[in-house]
């Protein structure tokens, strides 16, 4: 029987899935173009949350405008990361790339603890306390805004990838790097833009996360695991896959909580992952060879 509680749970699933969609999309873009798995991607979300928190508290900036600042700042961090760490190990043993990203987890967490302390924080939102109610169903304006913002960002991303030269270059590089180099694409620049873009998405996810949830330097780990689960469900390197995977993951998680209780949320969500992999090992939108 479909109760208002179940509908509400589905709505929460979509709302929480949206933040993970952003994170997973960024991860997918980086993997799709650079074939690089960044385990420190969740820490970029955490940094994004702290940057947004800083500009809202220190400068009094609106929390939703702070998302743009967080995106820009984390994109710059992404450029630095690509230039000074991953570029050095890209193309060498995969283990090198993995260990670099694992090391970055601790660097970011400790840097954040040093800069902002270990105290749990939350970004103050101008929409705090406001709610949209339709019958028995209610959703806060913050969560509604997060869904809308994610949609806007994904549409902008789509246009960037489809309608711009850099988007074309990124798609070409993701398909065949050697061919794209032969066509005159500067792959080093493409990598830099790709990582910056992926990081910017993580920064946006972080700023939204900080408006909706409280956060501390160690929150990056769980979103990273969820983002990986989502991109595996959706298909490695597939942006539509990240969107669908994120929605499925969020809905599965919250439906499990509603019916079975919170202790089952991770089990059910990962059961979904296993089911998808068994039925379609490359993920819903994945391609062979990824």
């Amino acid at each position, binding site marked *: 029987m479909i109760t208002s509680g179940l509908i*509400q749970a589905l709505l929460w699933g979509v709302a929480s899935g949206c933040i993970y969609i952003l994170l997973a999309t960024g991860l997918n873009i980086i993997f799709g173009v650079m074939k690089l798995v960044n385990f420190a991607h969740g820490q970029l979300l955490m940094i994004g949350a702290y940057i947004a928190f800083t500009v809202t508290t220190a400068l009094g900036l609106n929390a939703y405008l702070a998302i743009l600042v967080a995106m820009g700042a984390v994109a710059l961090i992404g450029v630095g990361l690509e230039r000074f760490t991953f570029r050095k190990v890209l193309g060498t043993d995969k283990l090198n790339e993995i260990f670099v990203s694992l090391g970055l987890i601790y660097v970011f967490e400790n840097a954040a603890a040093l800069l902002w302390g*270990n105290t749990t924080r939350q970004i103050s939102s101008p929409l705090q306390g406001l*709610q949209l109610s339709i019958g028995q169903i209610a959703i*806060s304006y913050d*969560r509604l805004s997060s869904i809308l913002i994610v949609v806007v960002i994904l549409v902008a991303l789509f246009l960037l990838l489809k309608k711009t030269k850099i988007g074309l270059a990124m798609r070409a590089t993701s398909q065949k790097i050697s061919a794209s180099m032969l066509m005159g694409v500067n792959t080093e620049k493409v990598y830099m833009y790709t990582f910056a873009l992926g990081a910017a998405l993580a920064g946006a996810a972080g700023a939204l996360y900080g408006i909706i*949830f409280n956060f501390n330097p160690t929150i990056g780990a*769980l979103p990273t695991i969820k983002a990986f689960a989502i991109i595996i469900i959706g298909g490695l390197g597939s942006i539509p896959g990240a969107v669908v995977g994120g929605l499925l993951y969020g809905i599965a998680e*919250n439906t499990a909580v509603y019916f079975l*209780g919170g*202790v089952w949320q991770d089990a059910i969500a990962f059961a979904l992952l296993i089911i998808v992999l068994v039925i379609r090992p490359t993920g819903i939108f994945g391609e062979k060879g990824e």
Partner: protein
Amino acid sequence: MQKSLIVILVVVIIVVAGVAAAWQLTQVPSAEARNIKIGLVAGGQLAEGQDMDRAAKLAVKEINDAGGVYVAEWHTSVEIELVSIDTVDDSNSKSVGPVTQAVEESQVDLLIGGYTSSGTLANQKVAIDNRVPYIITGASSSLVTRRGPQANYGGLPEGSELRIDDAEGMSYMFHYCTTTADYSATVVKFFAEEMKPLLETTYGFNASRNLKLAILYRNDPFGQGVVADSKAIIDAENLPIDVVIERSYPTTATNFQTDLTAIKEADPDAVYVVDFIANTAEIIREGQADVGLNTVYIAVECCEDPAFYTLLGEYGSDQLLESKFAPYAGPPYYLESIATYVTNYQEEYNTLPGMMGADTYDAFYIAADAIERAGTLDKAAVRAAIESCALDQMLIITETGKIQFSTGTDYHEIAPVTFIEQLVWNEDVNECRSVIVYPATAEGVGTLKQASFALPTGYEPGSP
């Protein structure tokens, strides 16, 4: 005759001088004298752990500035040296290694601290095996001192991994903290004695209607302990309370709307939230802002910390907090020692203290007192001295007005007094502050109640 008297006098003087000199020689400070190493087990990543660290440093500073601790065996006073044992987030995986290092390498004389029940149950084994006195100031699970033979294993079934057969090792554990049973009793009795009658007079509910309680808790020994104890007390004392729903979530959960949605469907009069600061604040906020569950939320005492009040913001207004140390409920305070501690803490650290620090602060004085009475740093002697502690209550109110560790089935626990505070929005500080609403009085304190409990603005009770 006169000559004889003079000779006798001289002999007496020589003998007395000789005895005095001999006695003086025995009082020369021993070359073995050294600082007392006390290890503070606290999670540096947690607000509570930072509070414990500050309180420990304050206590050590005060004790050392006052001349240190007199150790009769060494005929001198020595200072306390604080050994920081950072358990990071006090999870099982991170809480054992640092304690092992402190015991085996730093050779601490005594341990104080512990925060989460699961982390403490893990790391206390190191102290048990090495016979190191451990004054546990956190970890509300009573198993930390009841898991051994002295307390009949705390009711743990045979074969349970949590049982410890080493009675001697368990005798080194002391629990200077409220247990889940202690504060659950206060919470459910408050609901039965204060809130239920208020609902009846406000909404015209029938007296035969039980109060509807929802419990939302983290799925670990702490949360499970609270649920079990709450229900046991409700049953044992036949309280007019129905637990209409209980929902648990993994300790890694970060959002709770779906659980709160299910709770809203169960239509409770109040929600008992069992978690630490960050998650409790998140639950109370999500419940009101996202789910529209406009009820009364009650948090547990580990949330009595500045970080909780900051995170809650206006969502904390009119909500409840069970506590045993109320730095926000004054001045004036119900104990003079609290005023002194709050003042000193604020001067030193420019922030208000939390509850975890208060336990820790007292524990350092308990340790100092025990070592002085033992006259030695021999761990067995110190253990015995802690067991016979009879200090006057300090920051934590006790039922007898004394700090005493029991030797019955509530093994090595104190008898603390806990109370319920209601949070009130204070526009001057842009945060909530608290007033004590239950119980009315406490032994050794007198009047405790500062205001009457009032239902929150916009409160929606459960169905009649």
